[in-house]
């Protein structure tokens, strides 16, 4: 073919050595710039955390130096103690943990039972009911909040732990997530268990839960993080000293327009709130990332 000849000519004109050198230069530069870009991004991502930590360890005069220091001249651990008392973090931690643990446990029980029913049991109207529940996921939470605010007021639940735990106990999304996981377990196992006379609940406990454990762990962690980070609802319904939760308390403690803000102490408080989250992240990274990639819902 004529064109084939043409191609050979082109290739012969090329100086192979030059081309291969050019290739190497291109690859090296490509790699260099990719890493440079990624490291700059990593720096930008990490900088606020770095700034939080070092600011929390500075004295107020050092913090205010016009030329910033990137390492505290004198490490002020005392800021943390001060933050702990100033923001009343002890009570806030306690409240948040109580609410987080209780609501997570109750929520898990309900979610597992509900997911099990939708995945395994048969009854009339199951599919319509499930579709109806899924539809509610589309609606922004603020819509519920308005009426719930009134409902809990009428129930007389204002400023109690109950009001923080009960209203958002059932997450349709988690039910959906777990049901999908349960559905993958073949029905034969369930039928075999029935033949052996295993009760539903025993089967759920012995087979379904162990098999779906990764999803359940994801749900647990996300739910706990949700309690830790929830702001609006707790602020609306339990904004008293005895029941205030951490996020709300943190914002509160440093918004009071009482003269000059002590930034290092504020940063220490922020660090104290953030560190538990990091610890959870370090230990459960896999579950968090897996859960998040399937949900896209924060907390």
């Amino acid at each position: 073919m004529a064109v084939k000849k043409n191609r050979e000519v082109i290739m012969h004109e090329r100086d192979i050595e030059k081309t291969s050198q050019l290739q190497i230069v291109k690859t090296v530069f490509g790699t260099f710039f990719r890493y440079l870009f990624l490291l700059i991004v990593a720096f930008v991502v990490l900088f606020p955390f770095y700034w939080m930590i070092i600011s929390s360890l500075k004295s107020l005069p050092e913090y205010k130096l016009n030329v910033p220091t990137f390492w505290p001249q004198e490490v002020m651990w005392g800021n943390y103690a001060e933050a702990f008392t100033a923001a009343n973090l002890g009570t806030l931690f306690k409240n948040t943990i109580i609410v987080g643990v209780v609501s997570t446990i109750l929520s898990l029980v309900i979610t597992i039972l509900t997911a099990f029913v939708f995945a395994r049991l048969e009854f009339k109207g199951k599919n319509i009911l499930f579709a109806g529940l899924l539809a509610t996921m589309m609606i922004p939470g603020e819509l519920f909040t308005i009426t719930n605010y009134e409902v809990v007021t009428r129930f007389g639940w204002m400023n109690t732990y109950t009001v923080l735990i009960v209203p958002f106990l059932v997450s349709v999304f988690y039910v959906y997530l777990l049901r999908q996981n349960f559905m993958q377990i073949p029905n034969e196992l369930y039928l075999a268990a029935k033949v052996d006379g295993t009760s539903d609940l025993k089967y759920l406990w012995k087979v379904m839960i162990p098999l779906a454990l990764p999803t359940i762990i994801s749900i647990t962690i996300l739910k706990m993080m949700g309690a830790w980070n929830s702001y609006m609802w707790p602020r609306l319904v339990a904004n008293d000293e005895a029941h205030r939760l951490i996020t709300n308390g943190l914002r509160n403690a440093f918004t009071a327009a009482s003269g000059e803000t002590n930034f290092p102490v504020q940063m220490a408080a922020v660090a104290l709130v953030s560190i538990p989250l990091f610890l959870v992240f370090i230990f459960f990274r896999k579950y968090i990332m897996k859960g998040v990639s399937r949900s896209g819902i924060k907390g």
Partner: protein
Amino acid sequence: MVDSKHKWKAWLYLSPALVLLAIFTIYPIINTIRLAFLEDYNMMAAINGKVFEFGFKNFEKVVAYRGFTTCLKNTVLLCVLTVPISTILALLIAVALNSIGPLRRFLQTIYFLPYVTNSIAIGMVFAAMFNVVGNISAEPPLIVTAGIINNFLGLFGVEPINWINVGSPYWANMTVMVVYIVWNALPFKILILLGGLQSVNKQYYDAAKVDGTSRARVLRKITIPLLSPMIAYVVITGFIGGFKEYSSIVGVFGEGMGPGDNLALNTMVGYIYQSLEGQHQGRASAAALILFAIILAVTLINLQVSKKRVHY
């Protein structure tokens, strides 16, 4: 298997969830819609037995309220700015991350860190970074500490800017919020896009390599089209999240939603909560319905656009 014993058991297991959902999810949907049409509905008065008239007054009041326009403008502006910026950045990061060997997992973990933060707490850190201690609007400006961001910009000869303090300009406030929200939104988008990239068949890239396709062209002609379902997903969730923006602004500015509590950066959700706390439940409901309508519309538009652009 389908016997009567099972049926009552199914309902028994379902009952806790159904009761809670009925009270705290289903009823609120209906009731909130009802409240939106009860003129000047006020919870306290309602508890005391007051009866409200049916009408559209709540909607009229919401729309007529001057602050509402600000809320709408801020919300839309934040969406329009942060969603494209964070999506494009996340895409570039994900593509770069996918193409390297060493350090990939490490960097991926670092990039995910902002996700596991408390948006109020870290908002306060951003506030500290942009904060100017002193009185910057005085003549001449009295600056004790310019803040690390101003210090950094100073290296390039930029005069200190009043980012978030009293008297700061709107564009500066908006810039801070965009930076913070993008920073906060990146992890999720990177995670999703990287997941998508990793599921793309490597042979497409081998084929492109054999054909001598340039990097830019691979990105434009192969990666982005093949990733389009994921991109559509992060854009849609980004818009939904953007329209509900609230707590990140509280983190930076406090509940005053702006420098000196001037509500300059108030958002739709902010407005809903303020109405709620001000015992204007009717108005809050109307605003929530409007928000829902907007989100629904934007999502539908997005889906429509992606139908044409997304290659499955």
